[in-house]
């Protein structure tokens, strides 16, 4: 296989499988991650995303497959693919930010951050300089001499991040980086993470179960389910062209309709659904069962006879129909997404 070396992926996960007894955690996973990409592994809990992350970091051993990373080759793009699985975790050019942050409670912030550099055997001055630099980047300078126990959740998250990026890894893995934060801090940190990734120029791989988080931060997303990669694409493609029913259901909201097109499922996103009082000209007819008003916009849920799922429509302004009214439902053929029906 010949590959244009300038476009060679930074990380290549090839046919990786892993099972715990009868439980399949990873099933023939193939992913390629490009340099400087912000990549997300998205899926419900138990989908295998954390196992994959831990396999890359070296804390799990896949049963089969290969994981390679592009070496930091000196010549113009002459990096070779290094076999990660043959390296012990402490020798991998990959850093992991743990979900629990895993800060050393007996070391202050500065020592926590310096720990990885000390293991590289760098000189004292260089360590101090790089630690100070990253303390400034993450806004932790005034907390340098404090123990993790005295920090807030958001501050601890930043220490964990600083401790990982100070090593200047080629690849930074983040395990549910925002899950331990409350909602307000989470929104701030989302922007912060994106800014940092841009600033330090490190490839980020984020594991998350939160689709909004993944959609708002990542350049590309791999949606995983039951150990398998369902689709890898950028957020817009995932939303507008889901590869299958699972992705369609997991990403965004929408109504999955069976029985309209033979042997296929029709996906209607709420914004593509038009409801009107015109029953005759509509594709379907139904009865309004629920309306919600969100200030700027509303959703209207309609039950169509002999259809199990409600059809949800969203539109600007206040609800136009009352519960119980009969309405017509229509959509543009271009906006409807046809998916293969899965058992």
């Amino acid at each position, binding site marked *: 296989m010949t590959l244009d070396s300038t476009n060679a992926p930074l990380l290549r996960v090839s046919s990786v499988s892993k099972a715990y007894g009868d439980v399949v955690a990873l099933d023939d996973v193939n992913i390629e991650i490009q340099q400087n990409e912000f990549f997300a592994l998205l899926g419900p809990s138990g989908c295998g995303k954390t196992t994959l992350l831990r396999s890359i970091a070296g804390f799990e051993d896949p049963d089969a497959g290969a994981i390679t990373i592009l070496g930091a080759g000196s010549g113009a793009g002459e990096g070779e693919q290094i076999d990660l699985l043959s390296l012990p975790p402490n*020798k991998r050019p990959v850093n992991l930010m743990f979900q629990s942050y*895993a800060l*050393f*409670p*007996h070391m202050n912030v500065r020592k926590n951050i310096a*720990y990885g550099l000390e293991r590289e055997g760098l000189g004292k001055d260089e360590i101090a300089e790089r630690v100070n630099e990253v303390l400034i980047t993450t806004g932790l300078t005034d907390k340098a001499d404090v123990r993790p*126990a005295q920090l807030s959740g958001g501050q601890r998250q930043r220490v964990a991040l600083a401790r990982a990026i100070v*090593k200047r890894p080629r690849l930074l893995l983040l395990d549910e980086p925002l899950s331990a934060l409350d909602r307000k801090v989470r929104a701030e940190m989302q922007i912060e993470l994106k800014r940092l990734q841009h600033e330090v120029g490190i490839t980020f791989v984020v594991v998350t179960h939160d689709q909004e988080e993944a959609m708002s931060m990542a350049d590309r997303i791999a949606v995983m389910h039951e150990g398998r990669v369902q689709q890898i694409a950028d957020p817009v493609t995932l939303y507008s062209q889901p590869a299958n029913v699972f992705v369609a259901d997991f990403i965004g909201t929408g109504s999955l309709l069976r029985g309209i097109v033979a042997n296929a499922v029709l996906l209607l996103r709420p914004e593509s659904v038009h409801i009107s009082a015109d029953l005759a000209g509509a594709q379907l007819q139904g009865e309004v069962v629920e309306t919600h008003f969100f200030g700027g916009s509303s959703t209207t849920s309609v039950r169509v006879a002999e259809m199990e799922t409600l059809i949800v429509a969203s539109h600007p302004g206040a609800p136009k129909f009352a519960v119980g009214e009969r309405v017509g439902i229509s959509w543009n053929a271009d906006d409807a997404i046809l998916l293969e029906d899965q058992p």
Partner: protein
Amino acid sequence: MSASTTQSGRGAARRRALTGRAIFAGPGLLYITLFMTIPVLLVLVYSFFQRGRFGGIVWEFTLENYVRAFEPVYLNVLSNSLVIAGTTTVFALVIGYPTAYAITRLPKRWRTVALVLVVLPFWTNFLIRTYAWIVLLNSEGPINSSLVDAGIISAPIGLLYTPGAVIVGLVYAYLPLVILPVYASIERLDRQLIEAASNLGASRVRAFFDVTLPLTLPGVMIGAIFVFVPSLGNFVVPELLGGGKTVMVGNLIRDQFLEARDWPFGAVLALFVISLLVILFAIQAAISRRINGTGKRYAAKQVTHA
């Protein structure tokens, strides 16, 4: 009106709590005070008075008992005891720590079995466990005879009645008390911290000394205290396995109370053991606070995050 009702409500709740304390905890706390605290305080009081001719006490204040403890004979016994108890503690930790570590790595159901097997000997008769070593170490015993049979030694060697025998007996007696607290501290340790060290480039040995060992130090200290202090106060093992040649503080205290009938001096020696216990626990608490930062706040936060 409403203020007075809440106040009387609060008063009733307070009365209920006080009644609960008195009914449930009262008898036990009273019993402990009567049969532990007062007796131990009595030892403290006795240390400042003169000995009676046939045991007991003459109520004349003196500091002589304390001065006497600094006589070379007794200083010698004290330092000898510290050395033996210290050596015992080191051996118990060197054996106990890796064993505790190994137990944490067993599958869950085997962990319980392994722990019960550690505790089991501790709950059996202490004299009998010591006696077992008389049988083992005796010049006609299985160790000597198998060494002779194997041709390693030509004639039985004196294993029994040596300081080594005392140390073996003490390690045997108290090893379970090291393994339990060390096990608990390793079990509580967040494994992700070790993974984090490894991820940051630390080898397994390095991660052990940088993360595992310092964070399990409070448990190690507890284990060390549980071996060190009872070893100092043990008079049975030095007597039965040391043949009376190794005299420890425990023997001295026993002799002052039961043979020499010098209770005040025995009290001074006992206070030495208690003070060591208290000081070591204080050091343990300080270390434990240092390692966890401001422990309580962190714990509270962990809970809210979980």
